């Protein structure tokens, strides 16, 4: 079943690429290998610089694949594995690749503009301001969702020592490369070797004792509880709180230190664990299918329910819980800001943008396979509670990776530690970049009014504190739903922008406009469900007399996040549809001075 699902997905991907995507590229967009791209026209050796298609495929895939295609499917499988795989496959077939590929083409045909500039040019000046403010909240939710997921993983006794040694080996990689001018191969072998040794060291009893001692420094001596979360979603333990602060300290360093000194070499060393982990797991699934060494049949039913009480209804919640893997707004940021400025030929946009998206869908299905095969036996899903996810979603992936890599001879304890460190570094890679962006954004938006924000330390600290607030007080599945909603809404906005551009060019628009409307309606519904029904109706109006101030306040904040995004989305939608109709009628809507 496991291998069958992967093979089926790969077949759909091949058919989609061959018979749908290529046709759109050839007949509608009419990609021309001879047309000059921004990378060749404005080649400045810095922002605009041509690179080969294979290099950019790797760059795009690495930039878009973070925790989304892993955690989303593992959470959504509570509705059953069939809806999860169906959305991954149908989503990528009709929507995901469209957004990634077409946003790269949109930027390429508009002088390499990014999303802000494009929304200004194609919709209105107000659209740009709204989009950028929306982006700040969206990125804050990425920080909250990823952080809330990673902190409990870091608190596990086998993880911190390996993680810390991996960070140190990353810093060593920077020193060896930039200061000592060592060969990259030597640097890689030495630093990856040290990091691997560190991860193994973390699994030894001595290391675990040290971590356990730290985890027991504060909080309730019996349970480790530091305080109860105000929203009533369980207790915050000292261990989770402490490691959340450690994690954010690393993000802070990544934001304020020179990139070459910290973020970049740490990401480089981490990459090898991510790469080898994915390849090892895929090979493990194939080997396990033929040897039977690990169970490869699905233990979670194909269809569980259309309403999971702690998640919500399958529509719209499934479609925001699984974001990356099917479609994700983050990808349009990568496609426009990074990839479009490096594509040497227009015909590379499809294999790079579309190809990376299709590959990510396969990673999403791999996560479903892990959850469905080992989730119940490992005690991560409870059949008695309707297959509710009763443990951290990250742990499901780590256990799956450990099981399937064990058939290749890697001990399960080491495989589990590698899996957890894999998830932590995958999240941290994105979180460091996001924090850096938030710091720049706060300096740009508030620096003139509050000069303190011009300091990188102040901007980073504010973003870190906001993230800590979300991690500490939020229930991560709701943060994940808000994050998924904002992410998918961003995708809807990108598809709307693409449709306006296509209309202005007198090209068919249905292939991007219809998916865009579907994403818009679905995600607005999901955000309204979380903010109005859950936060306001259940969390405030029907809270009951026993609810404390913290509970009400927490729900108010959740509602405020959700409603702000809904309002911003509706205003953008109205402006966007107006621009779309004008473009269809042949009236250009470029702002004055354009």
């Amino acid at each position: 079943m496991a291998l069958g699902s992967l093979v089926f997905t790969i077949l759909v991907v091949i058919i989609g690429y061959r018979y749908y995507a290529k046709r759109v590229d050839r007949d509608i967009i009419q990609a021309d290998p001879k047309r000059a791209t921004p990378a060749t026209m404005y080649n400045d050796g810095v922002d605009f610089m041509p690179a080969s298609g294979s290099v950019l495929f790797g760059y795009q895939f690495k930039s878009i694949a973070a925790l989304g295609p892993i955690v989303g499917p593992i959470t959504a499988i509570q509705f059953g594995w069939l809806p999860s795989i169906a959305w991954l496959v149908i989503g990528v077939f009709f929507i995901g690749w469209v957004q990634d590929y077409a946003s790269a083409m949109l930027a390429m045909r508009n002088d390499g503009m990014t999303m802000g500039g494009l929304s200004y040019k194609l919709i209105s000046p107000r659209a740009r301001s709204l989009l950028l403010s929306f982006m700040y909240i969206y990125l804050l939710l990425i920080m909250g969702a990823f952080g809330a997921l990673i902190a409990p993983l870091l608190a596990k006794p086998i993880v911190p020592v390996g993680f810390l040694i991996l960070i140190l080996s990353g810093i060593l990689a920077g020193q060896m490369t930039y200061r000592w001018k060592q060969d990259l191969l030597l640097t890689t072998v030495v630093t990856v070797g040290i990091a691997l040794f560190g991860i193994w060291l973390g699994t030894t009893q001595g290391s675990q004792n040290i971590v356990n001692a730290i985890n027991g420094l504060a909080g309730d001596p019996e349970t480790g509880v530091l305080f109860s979360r105000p929203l009533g979603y369980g207790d915050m333990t000292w261990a989770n709180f402490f490691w959340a602060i450690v994690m954010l300290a690393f993000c802070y360093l990544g934001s304020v230190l020179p990139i070459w000194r910290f973020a970049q070499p740490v990401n480089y060393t981490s990459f090898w664990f991510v790469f080898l982990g994915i390849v090892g797991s895929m090979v493990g699934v194939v080997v396990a299918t033929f040897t039977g060494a690990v169970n490869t049949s699905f233990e979670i039913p194909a269809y569980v329910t259309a309403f999971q009480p702690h998640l919500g209804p399958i529509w719209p919640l499934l479609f925001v819980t699984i974001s990356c893997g099917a479609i994700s707004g983050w990808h349009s940021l990568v496609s426009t800001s990074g990839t479009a400025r490096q594509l040497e030929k227009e015909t590379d946009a499809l294999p790079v943008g579309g190809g990376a998206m299709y590959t990510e869908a396969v990673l999403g299905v791999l996560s479903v396979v892990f959850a469905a095969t080992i989730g119940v036996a490992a005690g991560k899903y409870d059949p008695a509670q309707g297959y509710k996810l009763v443990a951290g979603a990250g742990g499901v992936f780590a256990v799956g990776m450990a099981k399937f890599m064990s058939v290749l001879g890697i001990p399960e304890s080491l495989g589990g530690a590698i899996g957890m460190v894999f998830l932590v570094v995958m999240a941290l890679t994105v979180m460091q970049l996001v924090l850096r962006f938030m710091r720049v954004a706060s300096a740009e938006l508030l620096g003139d009014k509050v000069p303190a924000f011009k300091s990188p330390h102040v901007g980073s600290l504010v973003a870190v504190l906001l993230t800590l607030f979300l991690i500490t007080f939020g229930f991560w599945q709701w943060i994940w739903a808000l994050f998924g909603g904002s992410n998918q809404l961003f995708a809807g906005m990108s598809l709307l922008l693409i449709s306006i551009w296509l209309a202005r060019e007198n090209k068919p628009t249905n292939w991007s406009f219809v998916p865009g409307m579907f994403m818009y309606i679905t995600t607005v519904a999901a955000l309204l469900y979380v903010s109005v029904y859950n936060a306001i109706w259940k969390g405030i109006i029907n809270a009951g007399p026993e609810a404390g101030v913290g509970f009400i306040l927490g729900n108010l904040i959740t509602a405020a996040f959700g409603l702000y995004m809904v309002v911003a989305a509706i205003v953008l939608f109205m402006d966007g549809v107006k621009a779309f109709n004008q473009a269809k009628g042949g009236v250009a809507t470029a702002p004055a001075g354009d």
Partner: protein
Amino acid sequence: MTEEEKRSFLEKARQAIGDFIYGMASHESTRQALKTRGSMEHLFILITMGDLLGVPILPPYYSLRLLPYVVPQIATWKRRMLREKDLADALA
């Protein structure tokens, strides 16, 4: 498939896989290094050619001596400086 074609195909496949891994592992590092160099060049041109912007940092004698070396970079420097940027550039 002839022996020659087979070798050429294998060579292309090897190159593509190598490029893919480089793209995942190191391309971002390369871009960051180039961005750092670009920022340094901005400063260098500002210091040496400040007269162009009305910021006379170096005496014109030295600026003129350096001018032939800077000329090839002036077009891209101007484009980078004058290009409209927005916040999303910070993610690039």
